[in-house]
């Protein structure tokens, strides 16, 4: 049978000011009817360029393009623009990462659908409308008729992505390209969306190319996986076997740096050996990965250009594997030991943050404006050398709490530093508590050299340093975060994402702080870089005894960095516990859903599905009951909606804010079933 999508020896080079750049080459792949091919790669691996090439919408100036792209037998790589316009949306559809910018804000959701249907189908007006309603119903949107007249800003992010999905399925295309469709969504929303896609895919039998940097997501959805590195596919084969036994050294390194749910149980650490960016210009080495490969044998690997060959159930671009060798995967390093102690560094009592302002009209009418309570009566203690993770989805108040702790946002309640009441905007607090922000692109001033960036905190917090001592200290700080000392004269844009985040860490270390607030600092980073940053943080904690407040939405990495976890939902800490307690019941029902939604790449493991229905309450509402009541899958009755839940302590040091009794919480079945046989590759 003809594959739906078939690429043969496809290569793409762009022209830039500084000469031609290789984007993709040697790409050969097939997607059969009803098959989902997952394409995974790190940032800069040109995975999105492949989708752009397939939909024939290339953003750059093409220097050279060759090879064929066939859609069910028709070569589309040479089609003129009008023919492509008729093709896109009808035979190939695309789902982009960000639904918020995919949908036109001045058109209703219905207009989007009716326009697509009007363009590509013969339906009359009533037929189109009926089909639009049918589509919205198909993607699980409540009240589809009313939805037609809504504008994109009137629905939530998850609902927008559902509409985009409806658009993609609208004309029953042969192929749908997904470019990171769930990356911008919260884990629980992403999980329901993936479920929906899997269901629709099974029903319609559409083929799909599913691009993602998140191997967990791909493991959930794809039948086959292709791993792309530097614009070439290095390994391609069935999802199950690739995840269980990766053979290409790059895939092996990638898998070794990914956190898994079983890590806590198996005491598996994360490998930090990331691949260097592949060369893009000039003469290519015979194997692109050779510069970062631990198994590089010049006489084998550099003999001739390495191309993908059939090895067993998959295709692998590795000269040594092609000879029949089995390369050992890197051994997982031992997990990092926490230097935690029991003296309290900072303590927060009844800390609340609220947003909102009284407008002039409200003031004249003598009433209060709408107030959003971002953080609500939060209490916690942080011990020296400990990492407290704050976990939750967007809008749960974790960043507001971080801003309050950094002295950037006013709050009510009390904060204590080393036992003394201290305000976060006081000089004493600022000298002891430092913040690292999520995005190093925006947290480092592009106009300042690294020397200036690092000199400022030294000048402010260690004024006794002489000029010479300061530049020596800058060099030492850079080396502390494993950057060469001569980077001091560089500017942030000359650094990679991971390097930038290291500079941000060095800046926080300059003050020799007791506490570092890390606000989603690993979110934008590739897995290996993330693992390296986490290891660096642990090292720093061990040598300086600093405590960390580690804010994240990613539960996977927690097991490698945190000692205790606080799960936040709508501004409240609904559960606080030791990190190991996450591996088994009891859980708060929200934690349970969150854990179930974070995708497992454990080979052969089974994840019990807990999906959240219902919608979030309005942020300005003053809730009388439990904040989670509207979406709780373990809702037990009217008390959930009307009474504040009590704080339960099913075991010492484990607090859960829930109406469920301790016994009921303890009886919740486990989320993961692991195949115990697969421990060979993960023993330290």
């Amino acid at each position, binding site marked *: 049978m003809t594959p739906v999508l078939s690429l043969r020896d496809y290569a793409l080079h762009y022209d830039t000011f500084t000469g031609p750049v290789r984007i993709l080459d040697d790409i050969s792949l097939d997607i059969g009817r009803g098959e989902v091919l997952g394409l995974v790669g790190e940032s800069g691996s040109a995975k999105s360029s492949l989708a752009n090439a397939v939909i024939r919408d290339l953003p750059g100036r093409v220097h050279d393009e060759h090879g064929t792209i066939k859609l069910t037998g028709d070569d589309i790589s040479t089609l003129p623009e009008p023919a492509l316009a008729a093709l896109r949306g009808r035979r190939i559809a695309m789902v982009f990462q960000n639904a918020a910018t995919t949908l036109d804000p001045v058109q209703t959701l219905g207009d989007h659908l009716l326009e697509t249907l009007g363009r590509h189908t013969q339906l009359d007006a009533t037929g189109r409308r009926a089909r639009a309603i049918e589509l919205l119903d198909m993607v699980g949107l409540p009240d589809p008729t009313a939805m037609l007249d809504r504008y994109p800003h009137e629905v939530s992010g998850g609902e927008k992505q559902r509409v985009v999905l409806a658009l993609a399925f609208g004309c029953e295309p042969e192929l749908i390209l997904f470019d990171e469709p769930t990356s911008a969504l919260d884990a629980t929303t992403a999980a329901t969306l993936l479920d929906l896609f899997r269901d629709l895919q099974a029903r319609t039998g559409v083929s799909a190319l599913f691009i993602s940097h998140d191997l967990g997501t791909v493991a959930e959805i794809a039948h086959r996986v292709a791993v792309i590195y530097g614009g070439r596919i290095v390994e391609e084969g069935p999802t199950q076997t690739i995840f269980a036994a990766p053979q290409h050294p790059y895939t092996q390194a990638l898998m070794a740096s990914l956190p898994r749910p079983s890590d806590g149980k198996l005491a598996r650490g994360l490998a930090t050996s990331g691949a260097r960016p592949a060369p893009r210009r000039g003469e290519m080495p015979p194997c692109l990965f050779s510069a970062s490969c631990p198994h590089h044998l010049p006489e084998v690997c550099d003999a001739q250009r390495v191309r993908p060959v059939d090895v067993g159930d998959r295709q692998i671009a590795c000269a040594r594997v092609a000879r029949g060798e089995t390369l050992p995967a890197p051994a997982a390093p031992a997990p990092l030991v926490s230097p935690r102690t029991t003296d309290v560094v900072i303590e927060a009592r009844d800390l609340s943050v609220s947003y909102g302002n009284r407008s002039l009209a409200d003031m004249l009418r003598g009433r209060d404006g709408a107030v959003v309570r971002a953080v609500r009566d939060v209490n916690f203690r942080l011990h020296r050398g400990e990492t407290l993770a704050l976990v939750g989805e967007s809008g749960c108040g974790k960043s507001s709490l971080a801003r309050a702790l950094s002295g950037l946002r006013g709050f009510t309640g009390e904060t204590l530093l080393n036992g003394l009441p201290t305000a976060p905007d006081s000089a004493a607090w*600022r000298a002891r508590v430092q913040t690292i922000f999520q995005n190093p692109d925006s947290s480092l*001033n592009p106009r300042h050299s690294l020397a200036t960036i690092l000199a400022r905190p030294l000048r402010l917090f260690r004024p006794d340093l002489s000029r010479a001592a300061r530049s020596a200290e800058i060099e030492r700080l850079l080396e502390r975060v494993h950057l060469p000392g001569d980077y001091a004269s560089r500017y942030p844009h000359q650094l990679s994402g991971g390097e930038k985040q290291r500079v941000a860490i060095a800046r926080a270390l300059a003050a020799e702080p007791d506490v570092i607030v890390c606000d989603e600092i690993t979110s934008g980073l590739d897995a290996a870089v993330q693992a390296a940053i986490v290891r660096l943080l642990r090292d720093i904690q061990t040598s300086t005894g600093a405590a960390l407040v580690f804010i994240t939405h990613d539960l996977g990495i927690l097991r490698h960095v945190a000692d205790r976890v606080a799960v936040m939902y709508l501004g409240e800490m609904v559960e606080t516990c030791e990190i190991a307690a996450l591996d088994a019941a009891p859980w708060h029902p929200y934690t349970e859903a969150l854990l179930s939604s974070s995708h497992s790449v454990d080979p052969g493991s089974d994840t019990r599905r807990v999906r959240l229905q219902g919608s979030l309450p309005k942020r300005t509402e003053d809730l009388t009951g439990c904040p989670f009541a509207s979406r709780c899958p373990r809702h037990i009755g009217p008390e959930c909606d009307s009474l504040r839940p009590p704080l339960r302590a099913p075991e010492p040091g484990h607090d859960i804010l829930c109406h469920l009794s301790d016994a009921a919480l303890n009886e919740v079945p486990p989320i993961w079933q692991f195949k115990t046989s697969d421990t060979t590759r993960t023993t330290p």
Partner: protein
Amino acid sequence: MKTLRALLRNPQGAAGLVLCTLVLFAALFGPAIAPNDPETFHFGARFAGPSAEFPLGTDWYGRDLLSRVLVGARSTVLLALLATFIGTVAGALIGVVSGYLGGVMDEILMRLTDAVMAIPSLLFALMILAALGSSALNAVLAIGIAFAPGMARIARSVTLQVRSLDYVAAAKARGESLPWIVGAEILPNTIAPVIVEGTIRVAFAIMTLATLSFLGLGAQPPSPEWGLMIAEARDHLFRSPWPVAVPGAAIALVAIGFNLLGDGLRDVLNPKTGDHA
């Protein structure tokens, strides 16, 4: 120096730099290099076209246009530059401070600039000249003040974007002082659009100065100020195009030069495209 070298590597920047250097050279040494006296009448050669004696022709009194343009460069270009500089610096400071502080201060400053912007800039300049008395320097001041609100708007809108970035939050969280945050964190990141707008405004400043001269509030005949030359030559446009075309081309050349320089500077000043390595 580094900026200059980067500017020369940038094609637009290099062209702009060359043009602006020529203009500044004329402004500084114009009287010395002018081939004829700008105010001597040559009645035998009225409305002459370009010739060896008068390279760019003559006007209705037979005055040498090249010499007039060269001599007039000083009053025209230097005054325009000064006016733009005053407007840019004042506007950028108001805009950045207003954007950074936000709240009530922002409201007050922006409503004041709105009030100034509501008055046409020429009318506003006339008002200031009426209050201060007419002189070339007062005209410069008037144009500078009239330009400031537009600059303030641009600087403020860029500041609003920059203000929400984390490096400003990081500076605040470290407890940096207001002058450092505004001067070192925000201003360098807002300066590029301000400079680009400023260089474009030089041409406007020349035109406004010319208009003021035309109205009798700036330069006075027989001064070879470019705007005044155009204004005077209007009456003779149908007898010979040269008296209008030559100062017009000079103004256009200055405008193009500064625009190109502005574009070049924008690229060079951007640390992401400029070469600091």
